[in-house]
């Protein structure tokens, strides 16, 4: 049990790191992208740049929530 806990803790620390909001921001934008691909927007040339802008915006929001400028 201790090993299983340590195993999952290791991978949580590895993947999520010390700010879970960044991982959440990335996953939310990629889920939105996945939805767009599923509904048939995958061939649109604009989709990748729009998703990149989305990741940038989500990162900015997560950073400002985590550490408001003081």
């Amino acid at each position, binding site marked *: 049990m201790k090993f299983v806990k340590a195993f999952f803790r290791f991978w949580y620390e590895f993947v999520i790191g010390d700010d879970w909001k960044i991982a959440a921001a990335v996953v939310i934008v990629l889920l939105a*992208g996945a939805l767009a*691909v599923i509904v048939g927007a995958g061939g649109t040339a604009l989709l990748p740049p729009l998703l990149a802008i989305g990741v940038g915006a989500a990162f900015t929001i997560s950073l400002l929530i985590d550490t408001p400028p003081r």
Partner: protein
Amino acid sequence: MGSGAVWGLAMATFVATAVEVVEALTVVLAMGVTRGWRSALVGTGAALVALAGFTAVTGYALVTWLPRSVLQLTVGTLLLIFGLQWLRKAILRSSGHKAIHDEDAAFRKQTEAARAASSQRRLALDWFSFVISFKATFLEGVEVVFIVITFGLNAGNVPVAVIAAAAAVVIVGAAGALARAPLTRVPENTLKYGVGLMLASFGTFWAVEGLGVLRAGGESLTWPGGDAAILALLAGWFLLSRALVARYRKATEGLATEGATR
């Protein structure tokens, strides 16, 4: 692949790996200096063996089972998260919102923890030293594996990425062994900022391309401009990070001015 691109790939992989190795080295040195070298080195060696096994299994799975788009989505997402974590720290450090990473301070913290820890022995090893050395080497090593996979596959030249990473491990390891002290002269904060930008750019490129797995046929999405889009992403992440640094700095300066006029 032109020689310029080969050198670019080699440099990017070398720098990214070197930063990871410096961090692992600081922990192993702290364990070796305070609790003896045997357990620290056995922990490091065991981590390298585990890492080789992890790389072999991951590599086999990637080559034999995973379609390219699934590989891009999984590795790209991980890389994007790592890159943004590094970028977040770099932005906060550049603007004075977080203390600059100092290998000396990290070394002191690790040696204090090592001195305070109990000396439990298992398998004739100092277990604390073994576990901490193992964990640090394996954790940083797995990041290196993902970096090598992404940079290497993206450039279509995995061997160059592997050689560059191995060179970084040997050079940084040798420098650490000679100095027997943390490598404080390595401009780690600047390098981490650069590596964060690279990881975020490659991660965005790959993760978005990988969403193509959900298309009928499963082929990767295509960026306008192909691979050149990575440069645009690099520029975009750089500009955004500078804008955020400026925003945080302005807030810090405003606070300082407010304090001075009181």
